[in-house]
């Protein structure tokens, strides 16, 4: 207990931890119902084709098969797609990417189901397709959709670039090619659909039960009220279970509806890697200028996202990339253009950072480039340009309230980096050492364009023994939403956190709370819980006051008791207060609601307040590079974060450590090898996520000086922990080898190419 006897800022045991580490948590794959069938997906292995017909006759002959369904069997709309209705659930006349579904199968065993799925055959007329977003936007390119390949363009237009350019003495230009990333959650996509006459329940591993509810209702042609979605315990998500799970859920629901039996769909890992959304690959072109004093004068950024075959969430990912393109720097003249292009590649979706990591990688690479051109230390160039007390206006013209923590994060991280020690000794070699710095300005919660979704529902039910049941609309996926919600509720009710039980979301117990994304879980659930507790206290406080012999306004809650303000001796146990409420038949349940504040923003110019408030962070990476062996070892990462207020220290630090290691994988080894839209490495033997042997030593500094508008002044941490890491690693590698690297990931071939000019064996390269 900290903060005067509340759990706030402490490290009490996470409520979900024991069951998870002892194997007691029941994931969807652990749940079998009597009569349950197993689903499988017949998926395309080419990325572009016209479809003549789909033949299911051989698939139906496989023993154990109960149903094979194609597009014409869909009772409602054959449409999935969160924002644009561009994606059929089951293929009609076109294949647009590998993984598009010709049919879904239900059978008595998973083996029979997947065998049957491979027996579905489609008459295809192959098309060349387009697999490069630059090519996709050229005149005459194959159109992925009839609407053309340009999905959308976002802009920021601020100040006069021409005039500013005249005052810039150093101008750098670069083209960055940044690869995508697989989420690599521990638990692949999983759902279970249970039909009843006229309605259906779906249990799913997911981030957004309400998205699934909408998707299933649309596909089955049911009212929303007839579709109940319960979030199953979810073994990791990282954005990969935001938009995507609506697809497997709709498939399972479709088969359950047809067979009138429970149907479970578990993706084998290979199918999961091959068919689900990825972090967007981006091309980012920069032209930035500074004056002799090292002050940024202008910044021009051109971003191109490879959306893949369907729009999915690409436009909102692009919206965040567009607003984050300049970073936490004071630049008077800014021009950003962010375009989204369809290709026949795997489609991009939500992934921790949501478009910001790519543009952050680019702006931090450019800052180091500029520093080298100016002959300044990269940290010094940042000091001269970072937002701070005297420079508080962001690149979109939003004025930030004081204190602005970016500079403090920079100094803290730089200091922590020089004091840090590597996790392990290096093997023999010619190791070059380097240090790299990266800053992020993270817009908390949803962008202006998505603020209609920025809402959340909670229910708090006081129990007769003084404990409390809490329901929220946002999900636990490993990130710590349960412990955050528990901490907030326990603090507000003044009870021990073990007496607060937070249950997984279910669309029949709370109102549509939007998605669990954008690092908004603790923020949005916490504020809704606080509102519910406020409403409860309008009924509880008068009862407690009567029992305590004071005025309701004097009642305080804490230590599992109600107390009188200023009279610490006068207490009554919470249990007794609630029992009195029960005896008097006073309602012990309350709902709470949160919605973000309205703000001004002009989508045409990109100017205004895209986000309500910001979190800032700085990561400093120290690396060792052996240029002869193409090896990069990240030895230490120092992370300083402007967190507003710590809700739960272990969960917060865990998020930062996880974000750093996950981003290190993206920076160095994780490469999606696509061949004409088909993933060649759909397994963890060739798609290289980091192991514990790769993890660097990590030092964390938490800055609580600038409160956010979350519960008790907190700010989200899920994404800011990821965003600056890869950029810091890139800058450290460039520092070590003395050359610029403009591609991600930094695999051995990229390192070899970068050092080639000065390498003793460079003559061996063709």
């Amino acid at each position: 207990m900290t903060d005067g006897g509340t759990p706030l800022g402490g490290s009490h045991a996470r409520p979900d931890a024991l069951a998870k580490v002892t194997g007691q948590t029941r994931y969807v794959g652990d749940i079998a119902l009597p009569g349950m069938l197993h689903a499988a997906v017949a998926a395309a292995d080419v990325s572009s084709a016209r479809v003549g017909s789909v033949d299911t006759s051989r698939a139906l002959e496989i023993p154990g098969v109960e149903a094979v369904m194609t597009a014409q069997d869909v009772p409602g709309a054959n449409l999935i797609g969160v924002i644009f209705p561009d994606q059929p659930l089951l293929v009609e006349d076109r294949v647009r990417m590998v993984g598009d579904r010709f049919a879904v199968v239900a059978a008595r065993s998973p083996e029979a189901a997947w065998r049957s799925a491979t027996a579905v055959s489609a008459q295809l007329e192959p098309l060349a397709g387009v697999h490069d977003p630059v090519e996709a936007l050229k005149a005459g390119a194959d159109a992925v959709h009839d609407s053309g390949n340009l999905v959308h363009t976002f802009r920021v237009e601020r100040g006069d670039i021409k005039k500013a350019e005249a005052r810039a003495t150093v101008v750098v230009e670069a083209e960055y090619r940044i690869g995508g990333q697989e989420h690599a959650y521990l638990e692949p996509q999983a759902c279970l659909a249970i039909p009843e006459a006229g309605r259906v329940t779906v249990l799913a591993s997911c981030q957004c039960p309400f998205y699934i509810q909408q998707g299933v209702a649309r596909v089955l042609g049911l009212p929303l009220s007839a579709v109940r979605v319960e979030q199953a315990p979810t073994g990791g998500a990282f954005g990969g279970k935001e938009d995507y799970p609506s697809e497997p859920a709709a498939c399972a629901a479709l088969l359950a509806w047809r067979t009138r039996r429970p149907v479970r769909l578990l993706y084998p890992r290979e199918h999961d890697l091959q068919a689900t959304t990825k972090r967007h690959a981006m091309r980012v072109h920069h032209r930035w200028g500074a004056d002799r004093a090292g002050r940024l004068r202008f910044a021009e950024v051109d971003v191109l996202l490879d959306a893949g075959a369907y729009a999915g969430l690409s436009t909102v990912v692009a919206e965040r990339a567009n607003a984050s393109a300049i970073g936490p720097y004071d630049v008077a003249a800014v021009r950003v253009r962010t375009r989204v292009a369809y290709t026949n590649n795997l489609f991009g979706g939500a992934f921790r950072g949501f478009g910001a990591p790519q543009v952050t990688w680019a702006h931090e690479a450019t800052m180091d480039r500029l520093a080298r051109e100016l002959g300044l230390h990269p940290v010094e160039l940042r000091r001269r340009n970072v937002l701070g007390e005297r420079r508080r206006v962001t690149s979109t013209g939003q004025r930030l309230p004081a204190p602005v923590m970016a500079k403090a994060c920079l100094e803290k991280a730089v200091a922590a980096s020089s004091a840090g020690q590597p996790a392990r000794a290096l093997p023999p070699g010619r190791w070059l050492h380097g240090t790299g710095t990266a800053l992020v300005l993270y817009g908390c919660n949803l962008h202006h364009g998505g603020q209609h979704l920025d809402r959340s529902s909670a229910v708090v039910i006081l129990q007769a023994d003084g404990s409390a049941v809490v329901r929220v609309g946002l999900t636990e996926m490993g990130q710590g939403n349960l412990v955050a919600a528990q901490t907030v509720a326990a603090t507000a009710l003044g009870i021990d956190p073990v007496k607060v039980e937070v249950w997984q979301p279910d669309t029949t117990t709370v109102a549509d709370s939007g998605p669990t994304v954008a690092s908004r879980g603790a923020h949005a659930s916490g504020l809704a819980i606080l509102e519910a507790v406020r409403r409860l206290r309008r009924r509880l406080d008068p009862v407690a006051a009567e029992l305590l012999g004071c005025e309701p306004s004097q009642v305080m809650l804490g230590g599992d008791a109600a107390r009188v303000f200023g009279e610490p001796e006068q207490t009554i146990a919470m249990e007794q207060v609630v029992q009195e409420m029960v005896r008097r038949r006073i309602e012990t349940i309350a709902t709470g609601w949160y919605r973000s504040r309205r703000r001004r923003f002009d989508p045409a110019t990109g100017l205004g307040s895209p986000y309500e408030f910001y979190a800032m962070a700085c990561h400093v990476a120290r690396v060792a590079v052996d240029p002869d062996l193409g090896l990069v070892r990240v030895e230490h990462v120092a992370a300083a974060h402007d967190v507003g207020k710590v809700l739960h220290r272990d969960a917060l630090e865990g998020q930062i450590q996880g974000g750093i290691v996950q981003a290190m994988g993206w920076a160095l080894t994780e490469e999606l090898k696509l061949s004409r839209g088909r993933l060649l490495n759909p397994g963890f033997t060739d798609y290289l996520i980091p192991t514990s042997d790769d993890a660097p030593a990590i030092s964390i500094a938490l800055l609580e000086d600038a409160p956010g508008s979350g519960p008790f002044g907190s700010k989200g941490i899920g994404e800011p922990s990821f965003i600056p890491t890869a950029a810091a690693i890139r800058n450290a590698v460039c520092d070590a080898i003395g050359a610029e690297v403009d591609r991600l990931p930094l695999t051995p071939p990229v390192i070899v190419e970068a050092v080639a000019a000065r390498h003793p064996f460079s003559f061996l390269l063709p």
Partner: protein
Amino acid sequence: MLPKFTYSRPGSLVQVANLAARPGTRVHAGGTDLLGCLRDGVFGAESLVSLSGLSDLRGVTPTSGGGLRIGALTTIAEIAANDAISDRYPALAQAAASVASPQLRNQGTIGGNLCQKPRCWYYRGDFHCLRKGGDTCYAFDGENQYHCILGGDGCYIVHPSDTAPALAALGARVTAVSAGGRRTIAVEKLHVPPSTDPQRETALEPGEILTEVILPPPPSGLRSSYRKIRERASWDFAVVGVALALVFDGHTVTTANIFLSGAAPVPWRARQAEEVLNGSNLDGATVERAAHAAVADAEPLAHNAYKVPLFAGLIKEQLTTLGGGT
């Protein structure tokens, strides 16, 4: 999904060999490669015959001639932890320690490690390539960052084993037993290059079981090492790797054996580098010349030329380390 197969675990080698000779049968030792291949549909199997009933095939024992016998079922972890191997054949201990991950080393066997299927995502994926009986190598014009720079001929896989180059450098032999008898094969001759037959990886005939590895006694003055460069610190194949076994007489190298991993469809003997070293001292210029000679014949594909300087760098680094103190 695994195919349906019958499974047997005979108690005698003859029974195993008889069963293994039947078409559609695969031999099961640790299964770390076999089960993955079956699950991914790389090849099928109607029946599996397990070696696990043959306890003679486990363990490391001295041979009468002063060498070591390693049973085919000895796990990679046991080899990595064996004191006799670490003391006398460090290249093998280092190679074993660098195989895959702790879990796979606990399960995988030395016999299986030598008989692995190649590393190639087209071969492992759903592509009907030359090695699987098709008529083309998809890697040649495709994504070939991890493919071979030496010895490719119609097929451009790399051999994935770490222990094979170490054993070859140490002059080890394997024993192959079939219903018809037994023979020994030098590890150097165990693997079949695609120029000979692109559809097989080893010289073992159907029904021939690899039962043991025999290491000759280490010559006096032997120094050996194995190192591989991989992208992540654990559970990753060699991007480039080198096994060295050098016999010194004072400061002079009398015999040099150099085998590369990650270079070719078979563990690749770097003869030109050996020739540079034989009879030489390991001075800086010699080391440089040997490193260069090892890759002089390299014919990289579109995306793997980076391996050439990495091999040179690695060989130079390992020769320098091994020559330290001479």
